[in-house]
């Protein structure tokens, strides 16, 4: 069943795209992430221009994180005040990221930057998650109690000024690290074409010490707003958002996310972190492979501009 995509300008198999949406949606629902870091490379792999893929995935991620955010809101498992503070940094970061994106594209080093960012970020974060969750699982196996958060073990971050009380999360912390994290996620997200949920969730847990229960819902709000903002920006500046592609992806995505969320409840949070860590690490290594191994074809062609 083929359909011609009006912006990507090529026909695709609807069922294949729907299946990709389902699969990535399942993973995103399971781990509470947007799944952009999986979807963008997949779309590029089936022949969609990278720029169109990045722009269209943004709206797909917005849809799945909205669906997720509503679910978490009903369970009161998100912190609106924390999400708002993250957004302040996030929107500034997205704007700065888009600016650098345009600059790198102009000097022809965008591909390398994207490849290297994926490699470094995904390998590092994936590796850390695998090690950390394995430790936690081994500890649990040996019957030792899980590492408890001691009130005295505050990092220097918790000594910063401009403290604010976040009622839902039950934390009292400076807004500086929160805005900074939002900025970094928005910045990286705009350059790499990802929502950044897989970075935000560990950052909130390990740095800000946000309780695990509200982390995913809060992270989804940030992802939702930055991705919705990115969709409008991409549509306004590059005219590269393919609404037909996005619609097929998001239908598959939101359905997959529901089943993923249910599947996720069967695992402990350590097991989930281990699985996500392996997944993130695998995608990172895939990029490493591309950068390190001699490509079969040294040449690539890229259309710089179409008709005048």
């Amino acid at each position, binding site marked *: 069943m*083929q*359909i*011609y995509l*009006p*912006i990507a*300008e*090529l*026909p695709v198999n609807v069922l294949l795209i729907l299946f990709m949406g389902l699969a990535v949606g399942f993973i995103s629902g399971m781990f509470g992430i947007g799944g952009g870091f999986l979807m963008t490379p997949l779309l590029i792999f089936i022949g969609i221009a990278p720029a169109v893929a990045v722009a269209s995935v943004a*709206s*797909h991620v*917005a*849809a*799945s*994180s*909205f*669906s*997720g*955010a*509503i*679910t978490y809101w*009903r369970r009161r498992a998100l912190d609106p005040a924390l999400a708002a503070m993250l957004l302040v940094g996030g929107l500034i970061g997205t704007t700065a990221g888009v600016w650098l994106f345009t600059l790198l594209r102009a000097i*022809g080093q965008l*591909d*390398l930057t994207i490849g*290297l960012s994926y490699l470094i970020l995904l390998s590092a974060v994936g590796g850390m998650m695998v090690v950390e969750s394995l430790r936690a699982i081994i500890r649990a196996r040996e019957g030792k109690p899980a590492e408890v958060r001691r009130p005295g073990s505050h990092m220097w971050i918790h000594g910063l000024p401009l403290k604010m009380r976040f009622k839902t999360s039950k934390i009292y912390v400076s807004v500086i690290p929160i805005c900074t994290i939002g900025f970094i996620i928005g910045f990286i997200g705009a350059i790499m074409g990802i929502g950044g949920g897989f970075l935000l969730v560990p950052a909130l847990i390990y740095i800000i010490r946000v309780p695990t229960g509200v982390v995913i819902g809060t992270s989804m709000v940030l992802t939702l707003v930055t991705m*919705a903002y990115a*969709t*409008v*920006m*991409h*549509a*306004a*500046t590059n*005219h*590269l*958002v393919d*609404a*037909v592609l*996005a*619609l097929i992806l*998001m*239908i598959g995505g*939101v359905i997959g996310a*529901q089943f993923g969320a249910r599947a996720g409840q069967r695992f402990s949070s350590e097991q989930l972190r281990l699985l996500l860590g392996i997944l993130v690490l695998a995608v990172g290594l895939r990029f490493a492979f*591309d*950068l*390190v*191994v*001699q*490509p079969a074809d*040294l*040449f*690539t*062609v*890229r*259309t*710089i*501009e*179409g*008709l005048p």
Partner: protein
Amino acid sequence: MRAARIAAAVLALVLAGAGPAAAEKLVISLSSSRVLITPNFTGAELVLFGSVERDAQTVARHGGYDIVVTVTGPRETVTTFRKARVFGIWVNAQSRTFVRPPSYLAVLANRQINDIADLDTLRRTQTGLARTLLPQEISGDIGDSTRGDPFRQAFLRLKVEHGLYREQQNAVTFLTPALFRATVPLPDNVPTGIYEIDVKLFGDGALLTRSPTAFEIVKVGFEQFVAGAARDHGILYGLATTLMALLTGWFASVVFRKD
């Protein structure tokens, strides 16, 4: 040398129709002058019919006629990158920008192009993929790329792999000695725009006449509406897409609500 030049000048006059009515004329017709891109577009095929018109004074051609059809798509600017290993990783180290090469190029003939005329004639008339002018920009200057240039070869090879450039020896069929048919294959990834067709008639190894025609590939209906909205009303289109995303997300959360 001078004789050849005079001969060429005479030939040019004859071709321009200024000479006696001795030359052949080409009459061509396309199966369609507009290729429509609809949601179920998966490529198309155009058929070109042509006839070689002769009159009583036309000299007899012992070797028969040969036809080369060149289809040129809308032009674009393309950069070809070559990767090299820098500090252990493969990066795009060198690049060449080709100035306005065709996005689509098909050279269709009735037999081996190299057998139709000698190399000099083929080069002069830019017949065949290998003899297409591909000017490139090198440090601000624009010059034609040489045939052995690795960037030019890579560009042609990649375009052929993408199905956008092709050279086919058997795509033109003579139905009678003067009537021919050519099939123009248009893959599913063809860009939209105006496509120019140049039909060249060769006889006894010389270019006898050529005739141009054109067709257009356009998006229609839904495809045109979406592409037009994305191009002309970017912000509205982006807002509409975002709204669509929010509705889809909300709808899913309602449908799958457990309680």
